[in-house]
């Protein structure tokens, strides 16, 4: 057997995801002396928050990137750290031990690591409404990607709707790109933002950035509609969208309707921690709506209930990019120390320092998370014939029919209706489906359950995984004598 120390596919610590949490973990673990591997499916590090412009698109001198300078700084720190970076690889399977299988441009790749730090981030929550499947309707986070990594807007006239800090960021960014923002419909009202304020003050720098976006929107005289929700989107004249909004009253009921025409609707209702990996490895999860939904249980060093598996960043509960970076740094140090790498006392001292920075950043992130927390009345308002599952076209009525027929939790609903069985693997419909299952039974989200984790972690073409496999290559043992 080969010496494990010289095997290029073996690592002390593997980090999945190269957003701020993953990069933070990789640089500190490598600093401690661990052999570290970082894998990301994107061509560049930064995750969604620090997405860079692709190769081939450049800005004129002096033009500021929409991506914060922090992304470039973290990229440089990773490069200098000695951690091995593998981009453009989509991890589709992780089994205990940890065996990691991915698919890259050159085909399948495999690695082994004693410890695994998951930094796989989130995806967007969009609560279904009639017309949410129309072309021209896209996520708020999707719009940030279009802005940051493509310098594009999804249309000339864009309506921005939903909740959370992305509203102001998207509205300000679209204005810079040259699109007209025809309105910002915010689910939250002044009272919600006032509640978030005390914890936001812990990070005046982030507060100032947000205030800058709001000032840019105000300067462009963009109509700001507090406590407004999208009731429906319909195809309008001349290929535009007709979007109907209403102010949500204190009782949760919509008031008089208001119609806005737009070329595109950018809409998002917060972020959902991605639990694919922790569910696949059967870690314990808790229902924490104020942190975004279901999240894997972690201790103060970000260890999950699975030995050797750590979880950092928004995938472990929404707390934002600044907190993700510090969480990653704590976990990287802790994982190295647990592996017996480096000086335990020095590592412990550094962990204490990182924790202090983490506390301030987490306060801000959690205030944002609370603003984006799922709202029950939105789910209650989904009409019966609205598709909840985009992949398989499963409506609310069909999900409720399955519950009426005896399904008590989401996995049964999936088997009976195909809701969540399509290529997005339930990432787009999961939250709404579970809310509907819970509401129909008068049960809690804990009783409604969560989808069993299954491979592949992300869809991959089977032909690519098989590579140039040939049936003739299968060794066939001699049949046993009769």
């Amino acid at each position, binding site marked *: 057997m080969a010496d494990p120390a010289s095997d290029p596919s073996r690592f002390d610590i593997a980090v999945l995801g190269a957003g701020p949490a993953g990069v933070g973990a990789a640089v500190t673990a490598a600093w401690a002396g661990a052999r570290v591997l970082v894998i990301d499916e994107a061509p560049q590090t930064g995750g969604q928050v620090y997405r860079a412009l692709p190769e*081939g698109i450049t800005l004129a001198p002096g033009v500021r990137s929409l991506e914060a300078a922090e992304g470039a700084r973290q990229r440089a720190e990773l490069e200098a750290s000695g951690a091995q970076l593998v981009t453009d690889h989509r991890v589709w399977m992780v089994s205990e031990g940890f065996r990691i299988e991915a698919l890259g441009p050159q085909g399948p790749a495999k690695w082994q690591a004693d410890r695994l730090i998951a930094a796989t981030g989130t995806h967007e929550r969009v609560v279904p409404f009639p017309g949410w499947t129309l*072309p021209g309707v*896209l996520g708020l986070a999707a719009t940030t990607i279009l802005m940051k990594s493509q310098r594009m*807007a*999804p249309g*000339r006239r864009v309506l921005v709707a939903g909740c959370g800090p992305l509203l102001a960021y998207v509205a300000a960014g679209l204005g810079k*790109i040259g699109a007209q923002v025809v309105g910002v419909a915010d689910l939250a009202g002044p009272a919600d933002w006032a509640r978030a304020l005390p914890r936001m003050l812990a990070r005046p720098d982030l507060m100032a950035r947000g205030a800058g976006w709001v000032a840019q929107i105000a300067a462009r005289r963009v109509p700001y509609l507090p406590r407004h929700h999208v009731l429906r989107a319909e195809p309008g004249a001349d290929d535009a969208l007709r979007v109907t909004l209403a102010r949500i009253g204190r009782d949760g009921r919509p008031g008089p309707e208001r119609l806005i025409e737009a070329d595109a609707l950018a809409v998002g209702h917060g972020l959902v921690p991605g639990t694919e990996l922790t569910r696949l490895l059967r870690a314990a999860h808790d229902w924490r709506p104020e942190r975004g939904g279901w999240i894997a249980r972690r201790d103060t060093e970000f260890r999950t209930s699975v030995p050797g598996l750590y979880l950092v960043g928004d995938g472990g509960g929404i707390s934002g990019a600044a907190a993700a970076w510090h969480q990653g740094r704590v976990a990287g140090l802790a994982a190295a120390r647990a592996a017996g790498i480096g000086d335990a006392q020095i590592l412990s001292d550094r962990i204490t320092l990182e924790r202090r920075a983490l506390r301030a950043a987490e306060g801000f992130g959690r205030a944002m998370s609370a603003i984006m927390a799922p709202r029950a009345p939105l789910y209650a308002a989904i009409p019966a014939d609205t598709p909840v599952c*985009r992949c398989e076209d499963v409506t609310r009525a069909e999900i409720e029919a399955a519950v009426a027929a005896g399904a008590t939790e989401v996995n049964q609903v999936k088997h009976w209706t195909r809701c969540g069985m399509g290529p997005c693997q339930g990432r787009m419909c999961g939250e709404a489906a579970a809310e509907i299952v819970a509401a129909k039974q008068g049960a809690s989200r804990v009783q409604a359950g969560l989808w069993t984790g299954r491979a592949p972690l992300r869809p991959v*073409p089977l032909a690519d995984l098989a590579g140039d496999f040939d049936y003739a290559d299968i060794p066939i043992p001699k049949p046993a004598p009769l």
Partner: protein
Amino acid sequence: MAKAYLREGKEVHRVPVSFRLNGAQVSGFAGESVAAALGALGLTTLRHAPRSGDARGAFCLMGVCQECLCRIDGARREACRTPLRAGMEVETLG
């Protein structure tokens, strides 16, 4: 259905490339995602829903929703995660 995406004109340098879209010669810019290039061409309907037949388009742009799946150079790829290159063959999947 729906209007074209808007490219920021000033201050951004892009290199034009031509590629084939459903058999026709079209153009976009090197490195931008195929999904963004199609959006900028005004092709926002990328498929039709299996049961209802309704038009669908790019939605998450981060490789999650699978709404922008296209056949690119003969293989099914997420258009939002595929950088555009000169001479690419892109086909929408109906």
